[in-house]
């Protein structure tokens, strides 16, 4: 009996191995395949979901019109989604699977840098264009001619926050509370500190406190910060922690303003934070409330379709995918050989100097990193993120 069980298990194993080998072997004519390497499960499933929703919307749009027109012929789009479980090794596997089994022309994602850096390496080694919508770590695209991104980098966002706060609050001193185990938060906190001290002189960041990723209680750090009497507190943290931090700071008697970064910009922020967050400012990729033109159209359609206001990652995925589609069109033809096709798409991507996205105009200068404007938004009494100011790189 025991022998039976093992035999069955071994057979299942062998069949499963065979299934892996055979998966994704189908071929289609007149179809352009684009791969998506997304965080659909794991720590940040909302991010992957938003990306997938935006991509699906774009695909339906284009396929409804008969497909993407390249060189006078229309091609249907096929998007292949692979889940990377928000894990580095899984992201590499997903990327390699998209490249070798699904034979995609280009890959969108991963979003988070922890996945985008190793997956970028795999794409670059295998000469497949990759565009990360959301990754802000410089290493993702560094020395990788095949890897691009649609977001601005932290070294740009830090000064935006510093300059805006200095002007808006008339602040002379600041305090920072950040997540030491989150590379994004830590990087941004350090850049902000350097920038602020360059502007206002050494020692004007009166408190520079850190916390851990899963912390719920910030009273020790906040007590120190409140005692140092800063003019405002810079919190480059994820939205779920922001909600806790602001409430606890108010409980400790802090009356001043907060300034945040793009990680605040989730639809969940206001559900968690409530009225405490009203009136605060943060820098981000685009402002959902008060948007105009194509951006407004995107937001309205997304909201009707999926019943919530899209956050920045949805908008950035929309832009990243459109960027790739534009490159495919600009290449002017579809090569039969997938390697040749990837090469012309990469060259076309590298050739794009300016791209009008819904998150603003991106200018590329050969590094794969766009130079684009950031916006500062204020949280309105209705809980909407209202456009306050646009800050562009000089």
């Amino acid at each position, binding site marked *: 009996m025991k022998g039976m069980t093992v035999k069955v298990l071994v057979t299942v194993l062998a069949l499963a191995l065979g299934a892996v080998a055979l998966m994704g072997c189908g071929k289609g004519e007149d179809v352009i395949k684009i791969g998506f390497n997304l965080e659909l499960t794991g720590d940040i499933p909302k991010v992957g979901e938003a990306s997938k929703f935006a991509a699906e919307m774009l695909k339906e749009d284009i396929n409804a019109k008969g497909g993407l027109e390249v060189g006078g012929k229309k091609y249907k789009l096929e998007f292949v989604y692979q889940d990377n479980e928000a894990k*580095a090794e899984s992201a590499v*596997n997903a990327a390699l*699977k998209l490249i*070798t089994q699904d034979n995609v022309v280009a890959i969108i994602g991963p979003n988070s840098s922890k996945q985008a850096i190793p997956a970028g390496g795999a794409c670059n080694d295998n000469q497949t264009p990759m565009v990360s919508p959301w990754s802000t770590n410089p290493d993702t695209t560094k020395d990788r001619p095949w890897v691009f991104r649609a977001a601005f980098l932290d070294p740009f966002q830090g000064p935006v926050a510093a300059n805006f706060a200095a002007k808006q609050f008339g602040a002379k001193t600041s305090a920072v509370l950040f997540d030491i185990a989150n*590379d994004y938060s830590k990087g941004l906190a350090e850049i902000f500190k350097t920038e602020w001290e360059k502007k206002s002189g050494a020692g004007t960041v009166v408190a520079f406190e850190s916390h851990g990723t899963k912390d719920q209680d910030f009273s020790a750090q906040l007590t120190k910060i409140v005692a140092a009497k800063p003019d405002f507190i810079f919190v480059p943290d994820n939205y779920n922690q922001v909600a806790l931090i602001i409430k606890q700071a108010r409980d400790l008697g802090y009356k001043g303003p907060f300034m945040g970064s793009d990680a605040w910009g989730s639809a969940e922020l206001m559900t968690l934070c409530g009225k405490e967050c009203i009136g605060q400012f943060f820098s981000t990729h685009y402002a959902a409330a008060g948007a105009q033109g194509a951006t407004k159209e995107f937001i309205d359609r997304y909201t009707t379709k999926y019943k919530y206001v899209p956050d920045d990652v949805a908008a950035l995925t929309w832009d990243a995918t459109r960027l790739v589609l534009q490159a495919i069109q600009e290449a002017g033809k579809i090569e039969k050989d997938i390697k040749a096709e990837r090469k012309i798409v990469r060259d076309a991507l590298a050739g794009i100097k300016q791209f009008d996205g819904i998150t603003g105009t991106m200018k590329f200068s050969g590094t794969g990193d766009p130079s684009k404007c950031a916006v500062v938004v204020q949280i309105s009494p209705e809980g909407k993120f209202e456009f306050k100011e646009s800050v562009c790189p000089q």
Partner: protein
Amino acid sequence: MQKHTFTISLFVGIFALTVLAQFGVINQYLQSVIMLMGVNIILSTSLNLVNGYMGEFSCGHGGFMCVGAYVSSVITVLCFSKNQILGAPLLPPSLALLAFPIALFAGAAVAAVAGLVVAIPSFKTRGDYLAIITLAANYIVISAIDNMEIIGGPRGFMGMNATVNGMKGLLDIPWMLLWVLFGTVFSVWLLRRFVTSTLGKGVPAIAQDEIAAEIMSVDTNRMKLIAFMLSSGIAGLAGGLFAHILGYVNPHSFDIMKSTEVMVMVYLGGMGSLSGATLSAVLFTVLLEVLRPLEIWKWVVIPLLLILLMQFRPEGIMGNKELSDLFPKLKKFYSFK
């Protein structure tokens, strides 16, 4: 001759896989799956030494893997890549082939020393309390690396590709696949040699009854020291291989989630069975890949499979038996000392 069938087919298998990979019959994705499978086999068999054979509950295996990954990566990056710490690489790329196994070994050695953090408290604590200590060890390692700016902190550490490329420069074959296969065979061989040796018999003796074992002249403290250091050292080897497969490490790849994954593999395979741990590592890796298209449902299906397995076969796939106990005829094909 028949006695050596297994050993011969193992090496023929490694050779065949490498040749198939070299000529592109096995594509990059399958190679990557095979490599991660190897790493998982190393992890689950090494944790099996502590959780299975010794009957302790260690849930910080990811931490030791992390130590091995970072130590070997820092060594190879200092030697072969341009880096922030020393600037120019120390050695010419032609030495990569020689230096890589040394770096892997160094990573494993440091991970073994890190195993002391768990081994020494284990002299006095057992069971749940020791489990908490292993959990703490995992957190200590990750927080320490988060706070080490020089190796990237939470941003992660990269540059290991230069070493792999250095090896490719000498001879263009899938080196990492070869290293992982050798590392897997070496680890399983070493663990098997240890648990079947006279000295190693002390480990299951501790699991049965620690006091009785001590009365029967087993130096339990020494056995625990050896078992924990061997287990964490081999996890360090797995970490080194993992880091060089990906070319990038991030401390949060080795957190409690990773440790849990390894534990699942051990209990799925059966405690105290090397072939069980190997089989379950293969099964687990394949399941993760095959069920990838299910997306979020994957995390319903896999735990459900686990629950069903534990319901109907609570001792895991193999229990504490080896494959050769179930199929005695297999014994004709190998001769292990």
